[in-house]
């Protein structure tokens, strides 16, 4: 899922300071699961902002709401009136939610309440770790199911580097060396032959390096006739 972290309260308060009427919008998808921008976090932020405003002597009307998935227009549309009635919207979704609102209502101000971090996995209660960077060309069948692009600090294809000590990463001694993990996994699977030969240069054109990515599926698209029937323009 997409893992995000709430911005510090002071940064949010500063962003919102010039505005009288604020709507904070959460999202029930990824950011709710990672405890950053769900219903509970929206409530907590709204009351924290109210307390801060009171202390700072700032008059500001703040209300909170939450949608099912902020990255989908259909869900955002349901609270259109509330969005447009405010001076500014603070999105508590990942940046995709914030940009969806921004694209739908370009004259309206939408600010990010979260820092969107990564594609991550909940390892245990309160711990999330990055395991994919969306390079667009998955190779984990050759690396024991462990992604070196996301999990090695140097995205090595022929790791580990010389800094792998005690099977930890030199960049962060708390983090497992991805290539030591790949070695151990392949050994367990009796497939070490997979990393005996040189993995050649990766084609990064499927990643962000190839430009902004848009995926299209012809079979899923609506025909002009279907669009007309659904009132889609």
């Amino acid at each position, binding site marked *: 899922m997409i893992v995000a972290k709430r911005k510090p309260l002071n940064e949010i308060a500063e962003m919102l300071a010039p505005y009288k009427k604020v709507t904070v919008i959460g999202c029930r998808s990824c950011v709710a699961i990672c405890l950053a921008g769900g219903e509970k976090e929206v409530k907590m932020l709204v009351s924290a902002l109210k307390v801060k405003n009171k202390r700072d002597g700032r008059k500001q009307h703040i209300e909170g709401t939450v949608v099912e998935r902020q990255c989908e227009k259909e869900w955002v549309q349901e609270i259109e009136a509330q969005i447009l009635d405010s001076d500014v919207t603070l999105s508590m979704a990942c940046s995709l939610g914030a940009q969806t609102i921004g694209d739908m209502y370009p004259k309206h101000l939408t600010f990010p309440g979260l820092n969107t971090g990564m594609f991550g996995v909940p390892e245990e209660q309160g711990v999330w770790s990055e395991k994919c960077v969306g390079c667009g060309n998955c190779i984990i069948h050759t690396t024991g199911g462990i992604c070196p692009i996301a999990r090695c600090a140097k995205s090595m294809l022929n790791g580990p580097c010389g*800094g792998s*000590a005690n099977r930890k990463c*030199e960049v962060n001694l708390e983090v497992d060396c991805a290539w030591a993990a790949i070695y151990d996994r392949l050994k367990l699977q009796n497939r070490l032959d997979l*990393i005996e030969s040189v993995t050649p240069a*990766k084609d990064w054109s499927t990643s962000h390096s190839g430009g902004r990515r848009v995926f299209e599926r012809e079979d899923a698209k609506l025909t002009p006739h279907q669009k007309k029937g659904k009132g889609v323009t």
Partner: protein
Amino acid sequence: MKAGSNLEKVFESGQFAVTAEIGPPQSANPEPLTHHAKMLKGYADAFNLTDNQTAVVRLSSIASAVIIMREGVEPVIQMTCRDRNRIALQSDLLGAAALGVKNVLCLTGDHQTFGNEKGAKNVFDFDSIVELQVFDQLRTQGKQVGGEVLKDPPKTYLGCAENPFATPYEYRASRLAKKVAAGADFCQTQAIFDMDMFEKWMDEVRARGLDKKIHILAGVIPMKSAGAARYMKNKVPGMIVPDHIVDRMKSAKDAKGEGIKLCVEQIEHLKTVKGVHGVHIMAVAWEDIVPRIVEMAGLLPRPKFES
């Protein structure tokens, strides 16, 4: 001959090679490079110019190479994948060759979080093994990684580094084999303090016949103090410094003298290890000591060849 560098000639003549390092300055002043080149000339067969080592911004390795070449000293330029994508790496290889640089050491590179530009965006389009493979293809076939064929390919002698002391230890000889397969001609090892562990790695290297395919330069670091030994033991990931070495440095009255003695002993021992074709002396910020160590280790005079 692949490039006809002095280093290549030393290896090909079967003589025990000596390389050392000259760290480029954190300034635009070429003087420290010229100074070290003059001082070290004749004491090693080639000198590594580090490429923004530990991710600290320094005078570039290619520029440094040209500066020391003016003093008649042969460079080995280090080229890391941290700061350049495949366009820049291939371009710099061509540029270095055009300037007369014949030895290139391919490295993945220290992560930028260790240096003085921690906010940098890294590249890592390649790792060192891919870099070797691409450079080898470029020099032998003139073919870029993207497929375009160049008219005048670079003549370059390709080096790599390998660390027998990094985990997983049992994979380290395999990794050297990958570097050989990718096209490396010589290999500098991480600094050796745990001789037993190094010899174990060399056993595996010989068992695979790799010592016949690549020239191994055993890495050594002369230490100035017990503090340096402790620092390397505790703070440098992928370095193993046994307690007896730290203790020896600690109990020495003259730590510098002891560091030199220890380094010379290590070189004497490494000369006897089958498959080791030379030593690489990394006198970090202590370049002045290299002539003395080389002399004490009985490695003078250095071979000379008709050019």
